[in-house]
């Protein structure tokens, strides 16, 4: 019985290979001048850290891998700039399924799609200076989670952030509404003031941690979904010198597990 099964699987694999080989042959026949695209190869996919978009949308942990892979492409100078053509938006006319929500800074040096090497339909992006959030930002995240079913939320700060620097400097007469940003970031500055090293970059990191915690505790939608393990909320810092995104280990530890896992455990 076992032997039969093994034989059958071997046969099945062999026939699949035959079919795909034939398909490739056909492709070559139809386009004799154009060489077969290398982007189909498993080797190319591995070298460019390609992760399936649908899997990333379905599972936030895979989504996180996809973002990390995209940033690796960026810092290694081998971006593929996927889904960035105008033809792509026509395909997305009927709707979007972004696999991640990114809350980041307005700074012109942190274009999220570029530093994560993603395209249209991939990232739902909220940007304010110092990624300071108020009701409108919270409502925007809830919209993505409830309506678009995004499961991964990333708070992305960046080194040498101007808004954070303003909160560290505390100028006597900050112009206009910039004081709203300073007040929002000030608690993070206070908490990190005792640390060694660069005060601005320490505050940037602390600010991200604070913002992650605010979202994890936010009623009525995010806190429930986060503690049920339905969504992930993590923090990261982008280094404007190296281009590298560092996901903060503090925000990757002790994450609530999805309920489905609990159910399978109960069965045993």
């Amino acid at each position, binding site marked *: 019985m076992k032997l039969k099964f093994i034989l059958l699987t071997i046969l099945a694999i062999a026939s699949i290979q035959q079919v795909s080989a034939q398909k490739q042959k056909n492709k070559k026949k139809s386009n004799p001048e154009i060489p077969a695209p290398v982007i189909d190869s498993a080797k190319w996919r591995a070298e460019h850290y390609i992760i399936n978009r649908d899997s990333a949308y379905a599972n936030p942990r895979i989504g996180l891998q996809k973002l990390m892979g995209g940033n690796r492409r*960026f810092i290694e100078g081998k971006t593929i700039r996927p889904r960035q053509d105008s033809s792509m938006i026509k395909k997305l006319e009927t709707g979007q399924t972004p696999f991640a929500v990114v809350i980041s800074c307005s700074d012109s040096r942190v274009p999220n*799609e570029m530093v994560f090497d993603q395209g249209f339909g991939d990232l739902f992006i909220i940007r304010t200076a110092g990624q*300071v959030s108020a009701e*409108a930002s919270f409502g925007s995240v809830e919209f993505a989670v409830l309506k678009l079913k995004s499961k991964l939320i990333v708070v992305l700060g960046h080194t040498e952030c101007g808004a954070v620097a303003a909160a560290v400097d505390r100028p006597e007469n900050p112009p206009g509404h910039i004081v709203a*940003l300073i007040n929002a970031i000030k608690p993070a500055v206070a908490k990190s003031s005792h640390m060694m090293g660069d005060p601005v970059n320490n505050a940037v990191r602390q600010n991200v941690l604070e913002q992650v915690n605010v979202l994890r505790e936010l009623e009525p939608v995010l806190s429930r979904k986060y503690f049920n393990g339905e969504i992930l909320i993590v923090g990261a810092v982008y280094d404007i010198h190296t281009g590298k995104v560092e996901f903060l280990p503090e925000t990757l530890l002790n994450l609530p597990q999805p309920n489905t896992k609990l159910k399978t455990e109960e069965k045993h």
Partner: protein
Amino acid sequence: MKTLTKEMQAAITPSMALDLLKEGNKRFVNNLKVNRNLLQQANETSDGQHPFAVILSCIDSRTSAELIFDQGLGDVFSVRIAGNIINEDILGSMEFGCKAAGSKIIVVLGHTKCGAVKGACDHVEMGNLTALLSKIQPAVYDENTVKENRNSGNAEFVEKVSTINVKRTVTAIMERSTILKEMIEAGQIGIVGGTHDITTGKVTFYQDTLIINNPN
């Protein structure tokens, strides 16, 4: 396309900034995007940013300002919030983008089929969305030409509300931010509203919202 330096930024006028955006959108629509070395741009901007435009746009994953205007790293100070509304933190961000970072033009960019505008048209109330949508609500009431089917199912109504919402935001920026108003009046920066058609990628600017004063 070179990465913007402080000198290059200083040489750009508000009307030149608007032209740069128009040209970029044309390139995007025609699939003639400039090939940039992004890593090199990251390196060149690591000592400071010198963007030429502040773009207030929506969070929608199909409306990336950098992509639809074909801009690189360091070019656009990008503020993104659902329904491109105004808040203290949004105003602060825009003021930072102009006063501290030296941008030359503010663009308030709506887009077609906006989910937030649709939500406001349906008077959705849910969690923190309620506070957000209440900021779009005045545009729904301002729209008085559509008499029937005043809901998200009526595309014509949604787009009319979206246009009013953009124009209201442009006015609100002038009314609520003294810094930006003074910079606009002095001709240091310009302001304009527009909409991005998410089916074609094309951006249309509303001429009646455009303010670019002569710096003299």
